[in-house]
């Protein structure tokens, strides 16, 4: 059965710190891996990664997938209090399943 595991489950840092969030997966027919940020009800899209291994960047956020290790990381540099949220990893096959999420809290 396809599976997505995220670590750590929660993280508390101070403003300015750099954080790395991890996502590992087991899948039969890999299609894509997506990262989301959830602050209220609806998750907002961050990145879509494929097995090409190309790094995606957007401002202070970046993400890359390692197809050999079946994992992905999401990096956030120079964290701000506005980065406090739940970060979700989503595995895309013929359906889309989510990991447990990482709850990030950034202290001022």
């Amino acid at each position, binding site marked *: 059965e396809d599976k997505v595991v995220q670590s750590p489950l929660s993280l508390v840092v101070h403003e300015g710190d750099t954080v790395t969030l991890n996502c590992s997966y087991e899948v039969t027919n890999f*299609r*894509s891996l*997506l990262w989301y940020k959830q602050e*209220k*009800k*609806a*998750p*907002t*899209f961050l990145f*879509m990664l*494929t097995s090409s291994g190309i790094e995606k960047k957007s401002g202070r956020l970046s993400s890359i997938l390692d197809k050999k290790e079946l994992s992905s990381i999401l990096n956030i540099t120079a964290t701000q209090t506005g980065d406090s949220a739940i970060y*979700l990893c*989503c595995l*895309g096959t013929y*359906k*889309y*399943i*989510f*990991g*447990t*999420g990482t709850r990030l809290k950034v202290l001022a």
Partner: protein
Amino acid sequence: SAVISQKPSRDICQRGTSLTIQCQVDSQVTMMFWYRQQPGQSLTLIATANQGSEATYESGFVIDKFPISRPNLTFSTLTVSNMSPEDSSIYLCSALTGPGTNEKLFFGSGTQLSVL
């Protein structure tokens, strides 16, 4: 991108009743999904809403409890039937755009359901 309108945004319901959640996408999409997010937990896939045919349900979810309709490529409904307090959750509809190298899964604003 896609804009998804989901309603109601929240509701408080009595045990034993049913609630239908509607999801309207502003463009035609191939795939739509329904998720549940219980308090303090991640998103759990309920089913894939198939256009013109029966939905594909995940393990632990059945059609009698969560009937889903998808009459066309832009609209879907999820009904939560014979509700109990355990059904209190956030329900989210989603749509997949740009299958392939630009694919993204967009979400409606969610329905916060409380069952008394």
